[in-house]
């Protein structure tokens, strides 16, 4: 037998996942891009060259500076003299925060309900899955718009700005839970029939503990894949909502808001105000999607 390496037990460096990652230039590339965004966005308050929200530093004389014309404003400025690069960094920050929060919310609700449905079975399962199926027939963006609109009508206008970010997270999260619930419910059904669950029941371990300590770790694989892909979708959802004017308020502009603001200047020739945030959004979501795609293929037992 030629050239066989004996695997070291337990080391994650020897796992198929790591091997697949290090041998996939796309996975590495998109991970790097994601990291850049993460750091750029996360550290924006400290490393952004300007503060686009400090009115004192803005000057209308700086408005509509062209991009690539020097290092002060590398990507140009908008109509109020705000530096585009800084605005994009802060915008990406918001996009990522809202996207991640909505996904976490959707995961929490979806995984929780999925576990309950799969474990309890019977009418509980039927009801929950029916609700999920019905909701899945409606596009997520519509759900999010609906929730956003209803909450917007219920809450008095002066409180809108401060709670809008929570509303958006809630709306997108509610729109995206069914996919997680269905997947987890399917996996839970499979796991519930396995011997280790029966053994735990026989020993007398309580249902909640079985659910969370025993079954949950085993159903998390697909959740990770769907979660990554949903992150991209959630970021797009938020961008769409902001673009439509029903998302984050203009005082906290995400990438979507920036694109909307810049749209007005397309015809007067200041294309960079909308294109650069657009490209940033594209790069971010593309990187996340590539990672999610790679993750799905790497974790798919049938493709190995």
């Amino acid at each position: 037998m030629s050239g066989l390496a004996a695997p070291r037990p337990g080391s994650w460096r020897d796992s198929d996942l790591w091997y697949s990652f290090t041998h996939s230039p796309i996975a590495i590339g998109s991970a790097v891009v994601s990291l850049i965004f993460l750091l750029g966005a996360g550290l924006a308050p400290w490393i952004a060259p300007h503060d686009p929200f400090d009115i004192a530093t803005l000057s209308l004389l700086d408005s509509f500076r062209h991009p690539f014309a020097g290092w002060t404003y590398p990507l140009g400025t908008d109509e109020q003299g705000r530096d585009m690069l800084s605005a994009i960094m802060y915008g990406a920050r918001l996009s990522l925060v809202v996207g991640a929060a909505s996904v976490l919310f959707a995961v929490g609700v979806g995984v929780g309900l999925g576990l309950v449905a799969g474990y309890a079975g019977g009418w509980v399962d039927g009801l929950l899955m029916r609700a999920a199926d019905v909701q899945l027939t409606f596009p997520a963006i519509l759900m999010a718009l609906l929730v956003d609109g209803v909450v917007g009508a219920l809450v008095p206008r002066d409180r809108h700005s401060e709670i809008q970010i929570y509303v958006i997270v809630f709306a997108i999260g509610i729109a995206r839970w069914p996919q997680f619930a269905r997947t987890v419910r399917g996996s839970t059904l499979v796991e519930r029939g396995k011997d280790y669950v029966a053994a735990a029941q026989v020993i007398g371990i309580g249902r909640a503990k079985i659910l969370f300590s025993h079954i949950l770790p085993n159903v998390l694989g697909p959740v990770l894949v769907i979660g990554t892909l949903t992150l991209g979708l959630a970021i797009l959802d938020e961008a769409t909502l902001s673009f439509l004017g029903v998302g984050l308020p203009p005082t906290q502009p995400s990438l979507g808001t920036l694109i909307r603001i810049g749209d007005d200047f397309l015809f007067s020739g200041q294309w960079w105000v909308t294109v650069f945030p657009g490209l940033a959004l594209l790069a971010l979501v593309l990187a996340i999607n590539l990672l999610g795609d790679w993750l799905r293929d790497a974790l798919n037992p049938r493709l190995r």
Partner: protein
Amino acid sequence: MSPAPLLEVRELTVEFPTRRGILRALDQVSFAIAPGEVLGVVGESGAGKSLTGAAIIGLLQPPGRIAGGAVLLEGTRIDDLPAEALRRIRGRRIGAIFQDPLTTLNPLMTIGRQLVETIRTHLDLSAAAARARAVSWLEEVGIPAAARRIDAYPHEFSGGQRQRVVIALALCAEPQLIIADEPTTALDVSIQAQIIALLKRLAREHTTAVMLITHDMGVIAETADRVAVMYAGRIAEIGPVAEVIRAPAHPYTAGLMASIPALDRRVARLAQIEGTMPRLDAIPAGCAFHPRCPRGFDRCRQARPELMDAGATAAACWLHAHAPSAAHA
């Protein structure tokens, strides 16, 4: 082997490149099948039986590939043929039957259409003539009311009937050899006997050779003329069925025979062979079986035995090294 063999497999080696190195799934496998003969290929799961069949008809799943040796059909090499030439051989000269009749048939196509397209691919017949032939094949395999059922979908048949349809599909282009890969494993025991009898009868009537791959020794005993016992990608023993069963020359074969429960004896424990078949990336040097062999000695560890004359059969075992003759085909 007095008449010229129909199929000859010489030193066939199949490898799978993986990230842990190259796995050798078949290691210099050699045997021959005479026209009209039924050769059983038996062994545990993972021994390489199905792979041998797949390699012969050129349907190895990538990244698997033939890394050495040759496959000859009536004296001509077929393993190095271009794709189109190989395609013409499949179905027309070598047919195949697989394990699960439910997934082997396209659920969205009537069986008539699947039969007719196979017939017309290989034989130059009009649509009407092909359909007539399809009906007669269905009758031959024992489907009642064939002229009506020909337009039915696979799910409208029972499991046993589906496998009959599969057999008809494999035989309808009149091949000289059928590779039957576990044809009865997915069927009820009561149906198994019928299907095996059908296969046997058809093979005899159409002088079709059969390579019958299975892990069920009982089926082999019923049906095969000769049998090859495979272990860890190699042939451990090959010879006439009666001889291999009655007086196995290889300790592995002996262990297999001993572990089959007999109806007429009561034992406290079923006999079994110690240990398990080695993983492909951990095949022992020398004889692959020696760690589990109750009769192993030094030479078994050092050198790999070729198939050698062991009286009525040929076995890859140093116990029979006294005979000077070379590998038995």
